[in-house]
């Protein structure tokens, strides 16, 4: 069953037109997929088909344990966006609902090699000189 409706495909394809460099989406699922793993894989397959610049790699969390560990993945479904390097972008669970916007925007930003942040924010972030643990509590609405 297709998850993206035609009008959504159009919007996503338009957003992805801005991509200038290659993006690899690395996804971890498992052989016997849970429902959310299957939803995530299906969604990523549909999104990646909308741009020639996007490659989707699907890995088995159990069989490819070493690779999962290298990426710091300890749960599935996991989605990683990689450009010229791994920027540390991770989505756990289905990137649906509002997070779908974020997924597409992040793919676009990685593909443009531009985090789309004002210079003031970049310089403030560059000034951080020690590890910071950020935990985001997501509201259900």
């Amino acid at each position, binding site marked *: 069953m297709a*998850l993206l409706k035609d009008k*959504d495909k159009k*919007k996503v394809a338009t957003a992805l037109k801005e991509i200038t460099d290659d993006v690899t989406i690395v996804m971890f699922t498992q052989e016997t997929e849970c*429902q959310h793993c299957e939803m995530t894989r299906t969604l990523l397959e549909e999104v990646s088909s909308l741009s020639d610049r996007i490659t989707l790699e699907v890995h088995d969390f159990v069989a490819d344990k070493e690779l999962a560990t290298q990426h710091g993945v300890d749960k599935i479904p996991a989605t990683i966006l990689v450009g010229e390097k791994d920027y540390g972008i991770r989505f756990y669970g289905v990137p*649906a*609902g509002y997070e779908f916007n974020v997924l597409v925007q992040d793919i676009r930003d990685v593909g443009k090699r531009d985090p789309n942040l004002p210079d003031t924010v970049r310089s403030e972030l560059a000034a951080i000189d020690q590890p910071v643990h950020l935990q985001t509590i997501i*509201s259900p609405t």
Partner: protein
Amino acid sequence: MGFPNFTLDTSMLEEAPEPDPEFTYDLLILGGGPAAMSAAVYAARKMMTCAMITKDFGGQVRETSEVENWLGFQNINAKDLADSFEEHVKSFDIPVKLGTAITTITKEKDTFLVTTDDAVTYHSHALLLSTGKRHRPLNVPGEKELVGRGLAYCATCDAPFFKKKKVVVAGGGNSAFTTTLDLLKVEAEVTLVNAIKGWQADASLVERVKRAGTVKLLDNHEIVKIEGADQVTGVVVKDRQSGTEEHLAANGIFVEIGLLPNSDPVKELVELNEHGEVVVDCSSRTSVEGLYAAGDVTTVPHKQIVIAAGEGAKAALSAYDYLMRKSLL
């Protein structure tokens, strides 16, 4: 195999162009709630050049769960309603500056200058202030430090985090009682604290809360302190009659004591009433020629979505008449 309960939000993927600081627009619309969005639709249909500057789309509509008084819908999900407003606005080619606060508004001859917090100044011949309201704070020790750490202003957004927890709700009006009912749905143990003697909420809401039988009602009590280091652990309340203070253990507190108009950028420019609302006449005109206001930021009574939307439409049409009369279109 089908996938249950699956939605994909693509609203943020259609990014409108940003307003041009070098261009003088017919109308600049400040705000992104129902008044602003309705005004934008009317302005676009009048072929006025207009742009919007707002922190977000939807305003307070996005803070509620369901709407039962938007004509044509006996009940509509508030997010769906706000999304449909946003989609309608985006169907027009209106430049939008999102995520920005307004710092100053001035007028030089027939031109308004609006400066945003990133130090960019935009220009227009007519201006609509539809910046809505924000939650009124308690202004007690601990409040600022504990926002988002157990202290919340939006039950629709945050009530589910307090499932089976002890929660204090500050306020005695409809918002406080609605919040209490939202918290009862997640089996929270609620204490309702009203700083004024006598509940101001609709009798039906008060009755529903009382009927639940589990809510502790503290009338004529003021909150004097919110306690907690990294997280709310308690609240100190004072009986306004006896003067005695009591410590209430709590995992969270919802502040529902009313709203303040977002009129600061124009407080030196236009006439405000004693509550800080922008005084408007029946044509949405303010005390400054060419400056219009609509929605919750104004003196228009009854802060309702349908009223804000109507006022926004009226303000855009009044601005159009003004620009025509001044030969500025």
